[in-house]
């Protein structure tokens, strides 16, 4: 039975789509059968980040409306044959996304794969609500910056009250993923610290992704950073985060400053 994992944040531009692609690919590399779904109707981008933009024929809304069958709309990744993408619609009205339709798709996918990653749109409107609706687990992508932390707190409140699990009295397992972490700025006291973020959000840490050119390079060529340059610092951080999702205990490395790879042990276990 598959696990449904929503990648969400409230705030835009923090790295939801990058993280969905990187973790989706890393899970597939670990042998899991993975489907990534883009919920950002009207502003789809997961197809572009994963390099599948020219292969989109049908989309999420086509499936919801019954115009296409689910297997017709799923795009199989060219690099990993156990990774599929269900793209969002670029043109349709986002009201065409119904709760019932999304529920049907998730139910059908659950029997066929191990992980369903839902890439949430920014905001707290309908699209974001539907992306988290059926989640078993959630990754809250947060930048070390006040507005992002505030929005993450709001999203955590919604995960605890508006999801199908919450309504049944069950809990959604939540993880904070800190992205765009700049060690040099942190060292100068210009960036809210990881300890402070975790204390404020009271949610366990899944990983710390350093700010890096490699992330931009990977999206430029349409390849998840974990596939494009697995040895790069952000890719290793995503690969470690993925291992934690799979239940492994991996020491948390805090990206350090200009000195390079003098990583510190944070002594804090994830999830």
């Amino acid at each position: 039975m598959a696990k449904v994992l929503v990648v969400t944040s409230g705030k835009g531009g923090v790295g939801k789509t990058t993280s969905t692609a990187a973790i989706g690919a890393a899970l597939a590399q670990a042998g899991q059968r993975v489907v990534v779904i883009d919920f950002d109707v009207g502003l789809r981008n997961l197809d572009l980040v994963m390099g599948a933009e020219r292969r989109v024929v049908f989309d999420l809304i086509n499936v919801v409306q019954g115009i296409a069958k689910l297997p017709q709309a799923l795009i199989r990744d060219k690099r990993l044959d156990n990774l599929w993408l269900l793209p969002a619609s670029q043109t349709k009205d986002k009201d065409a996304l119904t709760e019932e339709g999304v529920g049907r798709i998730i139910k059908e996918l659950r029997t066929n794969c191990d992980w369903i990653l839902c890439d949430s749109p920014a905001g707290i409107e309908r699209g974001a609500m539907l992306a988290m609706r059926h989640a078993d687990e959630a990754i809250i992508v947060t930048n070390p910056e006040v507005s992002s932390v505030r929005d993450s707190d709001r999203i955590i409140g919604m995960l605890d009250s508006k999801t199908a699990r919450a309504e049944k009295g069950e809990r959604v397992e939540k993880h904070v993923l800190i992205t765009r972490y700049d060690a040099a700025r942190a060292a100068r006291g210009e960036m809210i610290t990881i300890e402070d973020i975790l204390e404020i959000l009271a949610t366990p840490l899944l990983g710390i992704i350093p700010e890096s050119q490699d992330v931009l390079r990977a999206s430029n060529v349409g390849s998840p950073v974990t596939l494009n340059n697995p040895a790069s610092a952000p890719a290793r951080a995503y690969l470690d985060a993925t291992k934690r999702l799979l239940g492994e205990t991996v020491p948390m490395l805090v990206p350090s400053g200009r000195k390079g790879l003098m990583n510190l042990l944070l002594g804090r276990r994830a999830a």
Partner: protein
Amino acid sequence: MSMLRLFSSRRATAPVPSPATAPIARERLQILLAHERGMRGQPDLLMRLREEILAVVSRHVVLDPDKVIVRMERGKHVSTLEVDIELPSGSENAFVPPGDDRRQPGDLRAVPAK
């Protein structure tokens, strides 16, 4: 390029560094979020209050649902609930006689024209 980088890194570790702002960020967030978490779910409460007050008052007075405003303000020691209901002019006609069930809450048929 490398020269520039040399300069910028010099400047970053200049003898008088700007004070760390991260602790201020933390403090502001903690105060703000404590407040926002308390407010969470309140819009729903106000909406329910508004609907129920509207239903009760409409049993006796014909009124415009848009002219019923319910506001809550949270103070440090006292919180207030403010209900502002505007009655239509010529309100003697607006009172629903007892036993008259022709007019339902929110029904504006009997509101006299200005």
